[in-house]
């Protein structure tokens, strides 16, 4: 489902930030207008989409954040907000009062948390994050972006127990942003990541916390036993990679943040959500024709052929194209 950026300003500066390219090319003062929110609600509704995903920057910085969320819920969307949870006390009070009576299924937060033991910045922002977690506990599913091989999920388990969060963790794998400097998990480290994750498996099992994997994980790096564990104890596992579609406050659209420089267009060029998806799926396919996946073996892999795995994040391929002679289909250099 598409993500709609309410703001382009963030309160964090995460070293792995996958939105960095887009943010550096955009005005931080751009915020979405009511007119555009209404247009998008109409557009998504017409496309049969019933979930409205709100993203930033930090979306709660939008001065009309609370009112716009209430509006979308009135339009019968299930609203999902991706947030750092860092907001002023007055904004938190405001949101708390406005959202208190909403049905649980109407509004959910995915709070992307950073390990406070890993950086001074994360430690400094912890009190505000905790205030948010305490206020909206049962509406929140924590999310965590893996950008170091020795990561820990212990602090998230602690958050879940302490604040009564949803018993799941959305795990994101950090990917390269072609043309930008960001921290990401290199291909050679993916096995280490998987190994490190499964060191947490007994604890997650005992605490009944279901981890789910966001896009870009390569299926072939997991053993059958690990996949079986996910089936038994895990949440949603996606070994796919495709156009999520992000929509900016100025109504520009792009396939996903790592591909924000690729074929950025205006939503007004498309008559429907289906048309937009078809367009960006076509772009992804062109890249996959040039390079099947993140490993050379992806080209002939049965898992990819059968549609069980997309071959990892396409951003790895695009980044690789930048360091070779310009010999491929020109669209992939867009």
């Amino acid at each position: 489902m598409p993500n709609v950026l309410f703001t382009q300003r963030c309160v964090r500066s995460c070293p792995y930030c996958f939105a960095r390219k887009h943010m550096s090319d955009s005005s931080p003062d751009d915020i979405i207008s009511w007119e555009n929110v209404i247009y998008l609600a109409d557009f998504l509704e017409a496309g049969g989409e019933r979930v409205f995903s709100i993203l930033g920057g930090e979306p709660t910085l939008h001065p009309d954040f609370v009112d716009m969320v209430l509006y979308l819920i009135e339009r019968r969307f299930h609203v999902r907000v991706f947030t750092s949870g860092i907001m002023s006390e007055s904004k938190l009070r405001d949101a708390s009062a406005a959202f208190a009576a909403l049905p649980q299924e109407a509004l959910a937060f995915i709070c992307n948390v950073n390990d406070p033991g890993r950086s001074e910045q994360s430690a400094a922002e912890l009190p505000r994050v905790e205030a948010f977690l305490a206020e909206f506990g049962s509406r929140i599913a924590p999310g965590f972006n893996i950008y170091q091989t020795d990561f820990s999920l212990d602090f998230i388990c602690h958050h879940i127990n302490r604040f009564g969060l949803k018993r799941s963790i959305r795990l994101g794998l950090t990917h390269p942003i072609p043309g930008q400097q960001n921290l990401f998990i290199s291909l050679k480290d993916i096995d280490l990541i998987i190994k490190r994750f499964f060191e947490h498996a007994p604890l997650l099992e005992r605490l009944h916390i279901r981890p789910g994997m966001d896009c870009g994980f390569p299926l072939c790096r997991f053993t059958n036993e690990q996949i079986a564990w996910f089936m038994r104890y895990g949440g949603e596992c996606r070994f796919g990679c495709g156009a999520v579609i992000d929509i900016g406050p100025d109504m520009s659209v792009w396939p996903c943040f790592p591909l924000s420089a690729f074929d950025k267009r205006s939503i007004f060029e498309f008559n429907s959500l289906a048309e937009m998806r078809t367009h960006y799926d076509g772009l992804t396919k062109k890249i996959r024709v040039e390079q099947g996946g993140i490993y050379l073996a992806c080209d002939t892999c049965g898992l990819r052929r059968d549609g069980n795995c997309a071959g990892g994040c396409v951003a790895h391929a695009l980044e690789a194209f930048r360091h070779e002679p310009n010999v491929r289909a020109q669209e992939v250099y867009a």
Partner: protein
Amino acid sequence: MSDHVFVCPPREPLLRALKDKNVVVDAASTKGVADAFGLAQRCGAAVRCVRARFAGLLAEIKPEAAWEGIPLALYVDGVGRFRDIAPRLPALRRLNLRVYVQASSANNLTGIRILSSLGLAAAAIIDRSADWGGCADLCTYALLGTAPHAPIDPFARLAENYHETGINRLTAALFEDPSAIFHVNENGPVARTAGELARSEFVAPSIERFLAAPPEPLDSALGLLAQNSSCAFCPALSVCLGIVADPANCPPGAKEFFADLLDAVEQSKDLNRRGRRTLWQT
């Protein structure tokens, strides 16, 4: 029954004189809505709607159960914050309501669009102070927006009744049409417009005299043509008719707005002709 519509205060002698006539009952405030409607019905007037003003935001109004079933044209200063309107929406939706807001600010135009998108009929009061650019955007949404939404006047009414070769007065949906809608003073004299009523410029000294000898339909467009003013060469003349703009001092952006409006009306009619607006589409 004549085709004339009378905007009339809720006074019994006046309403009795307007028995069987089309009447917009002009209640002074929202406090008198139900009483005004009841009185007009008892007097035998054909009530088109009750017009009421609320000195405040729509978000501050407390809809009354007694308003249910009354066609209500509610004038407010603005719409207000969505969080304050949201709790009132169920009650507002039960009403036969159209909300009128001045088109002079971007906030108001946004409020109108929000109400419409939620199924509440609304109207932009367009006068010389209008935010013309915002009005052009709103009319595009009103007439060409593909998602279901409540009508936004005066655009919806204009599109519905538009004649390519005739007169299409934009402000008719705002109770201003000097050839069809007349305004009654609380003492009985009748004027062509609310402005003329305020200036005591009457076309008849009483309702009875008006009905006995109705004034000739006024076509101000002909006057503007005769004056050979700049309006005579304006493609929007048949819609504006010198009411919104005036020949001596056309507000910046007004001409562009009217051009966009006429384009949107034409496109809307074209789409309707091609059957775009059917409920079930494959």
